[in-house]
């Protein structure tokens, strides 16, 4: 089927152009580089930014994993996987350790990523200052001047409204002590995984036509206040109903009888732990 298309859908010229954008993004950690986002046969807002990055990075020997909110099997993940498979014929996996390219929406996998892997995150709104300043020309100026008061002010307003830092996801980070950036809507729990990550992280916003990057071994700090330091969600006392893990990001499931159980949000991780448990039992 895939010989109807050029390998990985794009023509080589388009690939080179997007790769140049990525190189620039890697060279300026956290800086949003504009690019000529292509029309894709997937609806915008369904990860076309991430998809374009994946397509220009992927090679014949790559092994692909796609997840949506921790799940390999969601409709969105499956359709992206199908599309990439159809245009490349490459191998896919659900095993985080086996994958060489991982495209994800809303999560960073639980298993620690390595230097030989690339994590591609889908970004709906790449500008961390957008709620503070609607004009793109102005936010560009604010970034240039490192005028980031607005990011802290938004956080301050939340604290005034809700009494604490209420960002569940997409908590702004400072990259390499310079640019502030969105981590994409990953839960706060995943923010620390970006800090000094061994794996290259590329973030693509198709609709907003921007790519930013966190190169390996880059300092990533979640913004906070002196007397209200950044804190992740705490799952240390929760145990996964399926696999028995604790201290990973959990989904809360309320049973019909009103009781609550917890389950790993990262489904392939959960499966693996379950397998391990079974092997140990034998």
């Amino acid at each position, binding site marked *: 089927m895939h010989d109807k298309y050029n390998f990985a859908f794009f023509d080589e010229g388009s690939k080179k152009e997007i790769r140049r954008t990525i190189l620039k993004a890697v060279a300026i950690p956290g800086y949003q580089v504009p690019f000529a986002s292509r029309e894709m046969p997937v609806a915008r807002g369904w990860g076309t930014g991430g998809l374009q990055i994946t397509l220009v990075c992927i090679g014949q020997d790559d092994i692909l994993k796609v997840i949506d909110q921790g799940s390999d099997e969601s409709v969105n993940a499956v359709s992206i996987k199908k599309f990439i498979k159809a245009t490349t014929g490459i191998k896919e996996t659900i095993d985080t350790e086996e994958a060489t390219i991982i495209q994800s929406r809303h999560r960073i996998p639980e298993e620690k990523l390595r230097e030989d892997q690339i994590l591609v995150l889908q970004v709906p709104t790449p500008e961390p200052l957008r709620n503070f300043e609607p004009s793109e020309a102005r936010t560009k100026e604010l970034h240039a*001047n490192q005028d980031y*008061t607005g990011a802290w*002010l938004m956080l*301050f*307003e939340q604290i005034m409204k809700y009494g604490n830092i209420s960002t569940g996801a997409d908590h702004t980070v400072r990259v390499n002590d310079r640019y502030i950036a969105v981590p994409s809507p990953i839960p706060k729990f995943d923010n620390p995984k970006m800090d000094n990550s061994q794996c290259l992280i590329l973030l693509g916003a198709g609709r907003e036509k921007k790519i930013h990057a966190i190169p390996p071994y880059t300092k990533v700090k979640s913004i906070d*206040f*002196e007397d209200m330091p950044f804190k992740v969600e705490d799952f240390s006392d929760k145990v996964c109903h399926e696999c028995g893990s604790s201290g990973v990001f959990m989904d809360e499931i309320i049973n019909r009888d009103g009781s609550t159980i917890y389950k790993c949000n990262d489904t392939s991780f959960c499966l693996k732990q379950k397998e391990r448990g079974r092997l140990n039992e034998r």
Partner: protein
Amino acid sequence: MSDKPVIDVKHLYKQFGEGCSYCRNKENKLAGNYCPVCSTVYACRDISFKVYPGEILGIVGESGSGKSSLMKCLYFDLPSSGGEVFLSAYEKGSINVLNESNQIKKKLRDYIFGMIYQNPYDGLRMNISSVGNIAEKCLAAGIMSIKDILSISEGLLKKVSIPKERMREIPKKFSGGMQQRVQIAKALSNNPPILLLDEPMIGCSVEFKDERGVLKYLTRKQAMLLK
């Protein structure tokens, strides 16, 4: 008192428009402050003054005479068309700050100036809580503790008689006079050596009973300019 001015303004010019061969020729007459040929407005022409520590300088002039333009040039809201400004708090007053980079100008705004605009809409974010508006100035001046920001805000809001219970409300819901008082609290929150006030008491006079108290408080600052 020190003999060094806190702010030293030399031959400041501000014009709106490019000017033309007619109005650039000093012999030719303008229509008031405005060129009859190219419509360039000459808002400030050759303004020089010094303000020393503890001094208050009031500037009086009819409407349209360039008072607000001068304030905005000093606060770097508008680029000046010519002249020099020296601040004793910056490089001991040895550098013309008008020629500094945007980053430096921002630092000067954040740390050295407080500004109260004639129109509160210029000085406040109307959809952010009043305490948030004050926080913005604090954060810009490097105050990164919630506790400190709250105690500064509560103290100042009390001084301008805005009850603590209302500090989380957005200024949009306040009367003009209250908005102006939030602006005053904001401008003072970084404890600026120089305070710029552009008709600060407009719309305040009736409800702002403690006006003189506030002014007295204000004069403890190093210097200020008001009109």
